[in-house]
């Protein structure tokens, strides 16, 4: 197999024909594996700490491999707080965020890329600018906006009197629902697609929605897959906003739950690492499942001739 950097289409791989070819292949795999393992050292450390019996946590220098593997740490960690509830909340948050980001992001991204409507350039710049504002200074205004949301949570028409969107799914999910990052990515992706299919369909009289939904979006499978993974991860890992907008345990998410192990001067290392590992596993599964969709849905070879 050729180990050069030039991309080879995934479908075509030449089997090594010579002994030298095999040797190069083995060397390649070795190096790649070593590099990947080195990349994962912090994880290995995390998991090893999670499995440590208590006295070994206080050792310095720390031991990499625990003398016994305490799997019970994982069980105990999960019992330390209402993790099933947090898990459910994080899941809902991540799924809704993913669906909203991808759906509305694709629509808007496509509009910016192909349906160059009036005012699309300044609008796009505004969108980019949104990403540039540090969230620390919009936190309180956004919080107040949610608290004073008219006609929710006991508020009157002017938004006074109740708690608005605090401690509610609205407050948790809506402010972050649409992501400028997602719109930007879809715009770039749609820009790079050739126009033949789109123009043909348009001339044939298809509606814009049909063109988008039936022709362009299917071609964007890699972008959808990528963004789904990112959006899920961002929803899963979000911490500060859920912390601020929720006060009740029932609404809290996993990332907030993890902090139960971390106090100012006293950290329960094994449980923290165990819980963090468990919180990471769904993400890895989603990635493993989704990355197969990086392969394009429709090949371009059908376009020739």
């Amino acid at each position, binding site marked *: 197999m050729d180990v050069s950097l030039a991309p080879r289409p995934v479908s075509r791989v030449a089997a090594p024909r010579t002994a030298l070819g095999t040797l190069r292949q083995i060397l390649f795999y070795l190096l790649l594996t070593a590099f990947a393992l080195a990349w994962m050292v912090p994880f290995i450390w995390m998991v090893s700490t999670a499995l440590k019996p208590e006295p070994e946590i206080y050792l310095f220098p720390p031991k990499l491999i625990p003398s016994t593997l305490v799997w019970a740490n994982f069980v105990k960690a999960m019992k330390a707080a209402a993790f099933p509830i947090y898990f459910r909340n994080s899941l809902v948050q991540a799924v809704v965020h993913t669906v909203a980001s991808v759906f509305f992001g694709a629509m808007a991204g496509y509009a910016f890329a192909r349906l160059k409507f009036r005012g699309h350039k300044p609008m796009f710049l505004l969108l980019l600018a949104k990403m540039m504002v540090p969230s620390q200074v919009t936190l309180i205004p956004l919080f107040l906006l949610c608290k004073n949301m008219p006609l929710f949570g006991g508020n009157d028409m002017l938004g006074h009197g109740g708690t608005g969107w605090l401690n509610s799914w609205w407050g948790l999910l809506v402010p972050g629902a649409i992501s400028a990052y997602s719109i930007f990515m879809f715009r770039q992706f749609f820009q790079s697609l050739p126009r033949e299919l789109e123009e043909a369909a348009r001339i044939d009289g298809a509606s814009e929605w049909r063109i988008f939904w039936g022709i362009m979006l299917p071609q964007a499978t890699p972008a959808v897959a990528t963004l789904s993974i990112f959006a899920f991860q961002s929803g899963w890992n979000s911490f500060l906003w859920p912390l601020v907008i929720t006060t009740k345990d029932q609404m809290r998410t996993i990332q907030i739950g993890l902090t139960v192990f971390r106090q100012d001067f006293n950290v329960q290392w094994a449980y923290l690492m165990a819980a963090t590992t468990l919180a990471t596993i769904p993400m890895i599964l989603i990635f*493993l499942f989704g990355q197969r969709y990086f392969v394009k849905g429709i090949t371009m070879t059908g376009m020739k001739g």
Partner: protein
Amino acid sequence: MAVATAKGKPRYRYQGMERTKQRAGLLFVAPALLHFLIFTSIPVFVAVGISFTNYSPLGGGKFIGIQNYIKMISDELFWTALKNTLVYSFWTVPVTMALALFLALILNRKLRALAWYRAAFYMPQVTATVAIAVVWMWMFNNQFGVINWVLEGMGLKAVEWLTSPTWAMPAIVIMSVWRGLGGTMVIFLAAQQGIPDYLYEAARIDGANDRQIFWRITLPLLAPATFFLLVTGLIGSFQVFDSIYVMTGGGPSHATTTIAHQIYEQAFQFTKMGYASAEAVVLTIVVFIITVINMKYVKSDADYV
């Protein structure tokens, strides 16, 4: 059948079609626009307004004009933070992108356990910052950290990573590259799928070697993705906060404090929201200028040969 030219402009233009496109464009963008108007522009306007006051969340504050901005000019800490942020950004973004591109090229072929390799490089992105930052603190420990252990094993001198004003920022950069690489790699992977196979086939038939293919075909066609990563990478790097807060707290001797960190301190520790908002406005403007410069000089659209 309408023939699409290299620039993608249709040879025939239909009045009705243009209008439909315009309408559809606005409709597609409407949800995102609405969300933006409510949940982004309102908090941002409020924040900008606050920057002209000495408002504190605990109560009180009056209009003070541009005093906050004047104070910033002579605030040594602000300039240090700005410098640190720029240094961080200009190291992290290119290094991450180059390394990610390299890996994306390698992992774009049929390998055994391809999904696992990709997952190994993507994993850093999905773990909670807090736990992983602590693991890195361990790894960077002057006496017994893994990194110094490796350095000494190679015959080099141990480095006083997080406690040295010179090396603390490089340490943070290293950790950020480790963390961000996976996401960048994923985008390059997805973008590569958009490059039609027939281009490679044609080039090889014409006798092009690997390097020519990379520089003449792959890289130019990855331009939309590269542009996207550059802009979002820069924007994100200017907001780096969590890992610094946990690992160094902005030290040693303010060597790692960034603008986002300063904003956080001013807003939530000193409750000087007015000054924090002013710093945020300046940060946004700086990032905006850098982004616009990027947009002018970096190709953002792919040309089909």
